[in-house]
């Protein structure tokens, strides 16, 4: 029996910053334990401690091994598989998919026998990478990288598997397959699996959940037990002005009983109720009108037959798309469907191989055509890249000055965005010290500092906690209302389709559907949420 026993583990970082405090829990062979909680509440710290790569106080035992430090943990490392958070951090850009698997197998001293080959094929299939074994990691899409890291972690069949947000940026279909694999592994081999996730539908599949808040484990139980604990606070949407109340777009939370109908609680509700209980006021997001009035054409972007090829491989195949003024258009599709490639073509980061593109009524034929438009476009990439060596404020000042916004005006705008988007407290922090949710809002601020007409957002909500995501969408909605901005956004959270005016589905580089969300539901009356609709499209075409 190899059980895991974590006994009052505390992690403290430099400068007395607490990672996780006094965490204790047990896990039995074959159990899947989920870590859920807002960003920066200590999930990753605890995973790092258990996998024996950082110093901690307290005691951890796995089977007959007991350890109190990374040094003592050396002897268990061969049983542990750990996949850190972040898109494909463990990968080597120049190695192909196949080379990665062989490399990690070699590192772990695995015999390359028939068994190994079958297992490898199975993993590749699960990750949807069977067709791409020859492709170098740097040419994989964000989600494909994530899946490759995952199967590299699984290759030595660890007995204790620690996965830190493994499904960030992974599409719904692959997520289902991933869970099947995990389920098999633990049944066949009794592996203990510890997973953190920001997808709450996923959390409900785990045997037990640990809820993190304030860098502690606040509660633990099955998904049902946890949701039941907040059942009394969740209502169907009712107006409520009290400070003990929180009103969102289709639900109301109240600590005091309300004279209104209850709603079935979900795991996501726990986060809001926790915030309410801790009196952590959600930052009020607001957006004021544009400082400069603008004439915006009714069609902001028009693509006709846009095609992108990498060698023989067609990443985007004759895609037609239209983005209207004042519209939020969701671009959905499995990993590698060609979403990022499409956006990069729109932006001119990849040359267009075939087709015609018109941006803001201006046909795009050369770099010069684009240069004039750059000041009207905002972009946030899949990795929120900003200048590391400059504080938030300095970054924003830099962007403003590049857009030739006068200094005094720039400073005023930065203050204003700081307040409106709720990152005033972080203006002098360095990007690496920011919680992910704040980082993302600040990336948006950088992308809108010049008050663009159109925004291209590539998975801006991946890896961000429930509340931050909610606030983010509130921000987008306000931008649309106040500025008449048009937004093209990609996401793997199917529930976010509800916020979009229109949704385009891509599959293997082809557009397979393009409609309003209402019409999607009309065409699929049996579906109870957008995830089901999405899966249906993907399955039916197979």
């Amino acid at each position, binding site marked *: 029996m190899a059980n895991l026993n974590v006994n009052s583990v505390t992690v403290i970082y430099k400068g007395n910053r607490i990672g996780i405090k006094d965490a204790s829990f047990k896990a039995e062979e074959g159990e899947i334990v989920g870590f859920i909680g807002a960003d920066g509440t200590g999930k990753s710290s605890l995973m790092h401690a258990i996998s024996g790569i950082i110093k901690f106080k307290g005691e951890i035992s796995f089977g007959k091994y007991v350890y109190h430090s990374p040094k003592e943990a050396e002897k268990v490392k061969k049983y542990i598989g750990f996949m850190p958070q972040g898109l494909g951090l463990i990968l080597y*850009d120049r190695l192909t998919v196949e080379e990665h698997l062989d490399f990690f197998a070699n590192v772990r001293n695995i015999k390359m026998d028939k068994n190994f080959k079958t297992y490898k094929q199975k993993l590749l299939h699960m990750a949807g990478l069977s067709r791409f074994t020859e492709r170098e990691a740097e040419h994989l899409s964000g989600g494909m990288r994530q899946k490759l890291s995952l199967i590299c972690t699984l290759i030595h069949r660890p007995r204790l598997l620690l996965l830190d947000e493994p499904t960030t940026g992974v599409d719904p279909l692959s997520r289902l397959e991933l869970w099947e694999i995990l389920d098999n592994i633990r049944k066949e081999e009794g592996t203990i699996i510890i997973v953190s996730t920001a997808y709450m539908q996923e959390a409900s599949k785990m045997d037990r959940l640990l809820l993190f808040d304030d860098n502690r484990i606040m509660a633990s139980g099955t998904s049902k037990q946890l949701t039941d604990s907040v059942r009394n606070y969740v209502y169907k949407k009712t107006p409520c002005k009290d400070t003990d109340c929180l009103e969102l777009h289709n639900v109301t939370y109240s600590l005091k009983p309300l004279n209104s109908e209850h709603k079935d609680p979900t795991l996501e509700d726990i986060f809001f109720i926790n915030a309410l209980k801790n009196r952590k006021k959600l930052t009020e997001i607001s957006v004021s009108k544009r400082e400069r009035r603008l004439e915006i054409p009714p069609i902001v972007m028009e693509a006709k037959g846009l095609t992108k090829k990498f060698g023989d491989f067609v990443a985007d195949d004759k895609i037609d798309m239209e983005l209207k003024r004042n519209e939020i258009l969701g671009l959905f599709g499995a990993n590698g469907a060609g979403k990022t490639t499409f956006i*990069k073509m729109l*932006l*001119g*980061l990849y040359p267009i191989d075939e087709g015609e593109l018109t941006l803001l009524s201006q046909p795009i034929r050369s*770099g010069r055509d684009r*240069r004039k438009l*750059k*000041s009207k*476009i905002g*972009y946030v*990439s899949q*990795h929120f*890249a*900003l*200048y*590391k*060596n*400059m504080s938030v404020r*300095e970054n924003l000042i*830099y962007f403003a*000055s*590049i*857009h*030739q916004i006068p200094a005094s005006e720039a400073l005023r705008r930065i203050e204003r965005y700081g307040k409106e988007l709720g990152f005033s407290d972080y203006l002098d922090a360095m990007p690496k010290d920011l919680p992910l949710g704040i980082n993302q809002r600040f990336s948006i601020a950088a992308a809108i500092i010049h008050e663009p007409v159109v925004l291209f957002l590539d998975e801006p909500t991946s890896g961000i906690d429930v509340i931050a995501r909610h606030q983010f969408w509130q921000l987008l909605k306000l931008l649309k209302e106040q500025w008449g901005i048009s937004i093209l956004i990609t996401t793997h959270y199917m529930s976010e389709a509800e916020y979009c005016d229109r949704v385009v589905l891509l599959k293997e580089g082809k557009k397979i559907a393009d409609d309003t969300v209402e019409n999607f539901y009309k065409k699929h009356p049996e579906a109870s949420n957008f995830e089901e609709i999405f899966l249906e499209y993907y399955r039916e075409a197979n």
Partner: protein
Amino acid sequence: MIKVFLSIVTKELLDFLRSWGLVVLVLYSFTLDVYIAGGGMQIEPRNVSVGYVDYTGGGISQKILSHLHEPEFLTPKMFLSQRELSKAIFNKEIMVGIIFDQEFEKNYRNKKEATIDVLLDATAASQSFTTLSYLQNIVLNFSKLNIPIDIDIHKLFNPNSDEHSFMALSELLSVITMLSILLPAIVFVREKEEGTWDIMLLMPINPKITILAKSFSQVIIIVAGVMITVGLVLFNGFNLPMNGSFLAFLLLTFFYAFTSAGIGLFIASVSKSMMQTAQLSMLIMMPLIFLSGAWTPVYAMHPILEKLSLLSPLRYYIEGCESIFFRGTDFVDLWHYFAGVLILGSILYWYGFRKIGKLF
């Protein structure tokens, strides 16, 4: 446009100052590295154990040995035969063995070639080789003056300032070459590595301005570094003469930095990571420095290489600098060095500029 240019320059300088690893590298290269190369810092021997065998019966030999004293040397220990001495060295009891053979004193007195055999424990390389140079100096002084001497050897051993300032200057010129290739390349490659490259491309600025501003910012760093070295290290540490115009030197440096920046841009356009940048820089820099005459004088090269060396901008830069510092050549007479640097520089910078511009 000027404002945008300046904000990019400011941003790059800020970025540089906050990358402390890079700052340390640059400061080190411009100060200690040059200082050490110029011989300003010697590894002084300490408590070196010396053994000797004296077949001459004393006299000059003892005079020489008397100069090996503390704290550099332990009192020399006498051995009766060469065999015993070798054994002691082998057993690490003795680091340096000196053998005065029977002919030594006779030859010396007759002004013939007098030789001393020296055995060194080469595993303690630096100590024993420095000891060797001590010995050479001692012996040198004996043969020069040819009288029983009583001079402070250590003073005589002090750096001969001319030769050392020359070495320091050559090292400085190599440092300038290395950094002015590396820094501009790093500026661009860092954007690639940190994923900010796309953001840079999407800025509503003419790419030419971006490239120019970025390379200009690094040239500023180089010129600042050069001022530090020349002022602090060369003038103070090595008494480098300044016979020409300092302004001419700065101007030539400025143009030369742009020349190498061109190479840096080319490297940045083809490499994806810092590692590649570093490797490529080395690869390109070596022949450049070799052909320049910094290591072997140009006149001593194979005729083909000698012709090729005309293509190394560093050659004109080195010769120009030497003329300015040592010979004090007039500004107007420096024109062919300026022409060499400017012509090769324009070609290289134009090429690098085009190469990286294609990525925009």
